[in-house]
């Protein structure tokens, strides 16, 4: 029990600490890449990825710091990519919005809303085609459900009975436009219930519950041979893009501090672990992660930029 919680805490604290480090360093203007912060959604990436069977493939969005860190656990290439360095995950060509690490199963992330949904579809199609027992997970925001390609992909996945886990990270906002302002229906999950698909609702701030929900969803993909969809609501702490809060913009209410803590997946899990008497273990985890993140950030700052020749390298395979 507490082993699971500590493992989950390790995952989500790494995300929190890495992003806090970004926020601390952001104003030095050395990380020149549009940052879409994961703060508030750590438990979704952490919980779901922890439940994924070994060898799973994941697809994500431009808001994928959490997903990248949950899938890889590494921060050296992560920070180097933020700084646009040759040692980055894509040698500086991807930046914050296109983090991927196929060797860890994180295949593609993308900054055009909804565009990785059909890639996950194709990935799951390939698994079935090749008789490989693999789960493909795709993370997307509630904004993506406005796109035709979400419905196209969902339809095809259900039709083809593909081993795919759809995870809607629902923060109720597409930039600054609320779901209420965008939807001609009440509930996404009510609509998706009509597809040949396993559908789950949940809150995105409880890593343990998400882990167990994701486990159930994955098991059903296998036993029912049909896709699963998880819709997890969470509170977006920061602006759509950038490291600041956006309450001054006036499109949403400024929450009370205690409300913020209520939605905070890292705080909530930490409190549970403290109550369970894991204070020492927590401190050890946090210390190690802080050291890891700091070392990675410094290493990234000191790393070289790509050589000029890198500009024209790799437009095509084999070049």
């Amino acid at each position, binding site marked *: 029990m507490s082993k699971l919680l500590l493992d989950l805490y390790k995952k989500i604290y790494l995300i929190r600490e890495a992003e806090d480090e970004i926020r601390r360093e952001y104003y030095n203007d050395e990380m020149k890449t549009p940052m879409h912060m994961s703060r508030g959604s750590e438990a979704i990436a952490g919980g779901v990825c922890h439940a994924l069977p070994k060898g799973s*493939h994941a*697809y994500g969005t431009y808001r994928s710091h959490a997903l990248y860190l949950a899938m890889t656990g590494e921060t050296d290439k992560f920070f180097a990519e933020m700084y646009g360095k040759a040692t*980055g*995950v*894509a*040698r*500086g*060509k*991807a930046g914050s919005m*296109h983090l*991927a*690490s*196929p*060797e860890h199963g994180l*295949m*593609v992330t*993308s900054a*055009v809303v909804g*565009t*990785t*949904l*059909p*890639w*996950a*579809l*194709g*990935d*799951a*199609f*390939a*698994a079935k*085609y*090749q008789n490989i027992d693999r789960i*493909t997970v795709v993370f997307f925001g509630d904004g993506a459900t406005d796109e*035709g*390609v979400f419905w*196209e*992909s969902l*339809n*095809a996945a259900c*039709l083809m009975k593909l081993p795919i886990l759809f995870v809607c990270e629902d923060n109720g906002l597409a930039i600054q436009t609320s779901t209420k302002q965008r939807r001609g229906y009440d509930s996404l999950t009510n609509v998706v219930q009509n597809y040949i698909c396993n559908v789950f609702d949940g809150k995105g701030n409880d890593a343990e519950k998400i882990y167990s929900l994701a486990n159930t969803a994955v098991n059903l993909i296998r036993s029912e041979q049909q896709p699963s969809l998880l819709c997890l609501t969470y509170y977006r702490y920061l602006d759509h893009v950038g490291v600041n809060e956006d309450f001054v913009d006036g499109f949403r209410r400024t929450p009370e501090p205690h409300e913020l803590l209520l939605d905070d997946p890292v705080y909530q899990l930490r409190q549970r672990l403290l109550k369970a008497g894991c204070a020492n273990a927590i401190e050890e985890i946090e210390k190690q992660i802080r050291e890891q993140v700091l070392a990675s950030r410094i290493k990234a700052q000191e790393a070289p930029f790509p050589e000029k020749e890198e500009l024209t*390298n*790799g*437009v*095509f*395979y*084999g070049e």
Partner: protein
Amino acid sequence: MESKRIISYCKAINEALYQEMERDERVFVYGLDVADKKRTFGSGLGLLERFGSKRYFSTPLSEDAMMGLGGGAAVAGLRPVNVHIRVDFLLLAMSQLMNMLAPMHYGSGGKISVPLVIRAIIGRGWGQGFQHSKALHSIFAHIPGLKVVMPTTPHDAKGLLIAAIRDNNPVLVLEHRLLYWQEGPVPEEAFETPIGLANIIRHGNDITIAATSWMNVEAYAAARIMEKRGIGVEIVDIRSIAPLDDDLIAESVNKTGHLIVADYDWTNCGLSAEIAARIYEKCMSSLKSPIARIGFAPVPCPTTWVLEDLFYPSAETLIRTIEEKLGLDKTDLSGEEIFSYENKFKGPF
């Protein structure tokens, strides 16, 4: 590669697919209605029967998602061939093409490659109108990371498709509906026509026509007629739009001193402008006349055949341009049989 066997362009495509699917289990073919009775105008005949619905299947009408499916399947180890019965329909998947497929190898720092083939058919004639007739190769070729080919001969229809399937990059193959009946020599065994090389399909010393797709047929008809007047027309079949083999065009222009770019597209901001610019850069001193560009009338394609005939440039357009460039009198074309697609194509699609 020499061969005496004569088959159609359509059969050549069919054979390429069949042989590649036979060779490599990872190859599958899918798209809107590919499994219809006619199997995409005959190009898919026999594939469903031989390889089953796992590897040859019609999809929901979801071009965007189906193009993305190809990307994901390619990244996960398959070799998808995504078929669009009209180029116009492919536009629904433009974001996938330009935002995802083309840049992904570069944007992943080389970690990901996308061996996806997209076949799209250019429609023409019998009232195809403004939504069933586009070629748009210059738009596709504009995007780094995407290869674009336009086979004209049955030989290249087979060779370029096989090369595309074996390529580790996304390749768009633009087939022309009217070329489906063209017949020519094609080797029986599988072979590749290298992507990125143009081809001289007719030699001549007096003027060069660089042509794409169906315009090669018109150029051929024009060359045959001009030959009777002692004018040697050299035809360069461009066949690979991206990468573009401007060296071969330049070589020909250095010999003839005259260039007409006959592009199967609109001229504005098109491939013909790109070629003209490159040839001016490479051949300025050997050019004896300004480069001429020939393309569609600058309007959406009309449906009625009377206007449609005016919309498309023909062998006659080419002949008149050649005469103007070389300072010749007008050829009497009254006795000439200039190819008319209306003789063959009776619809419906």
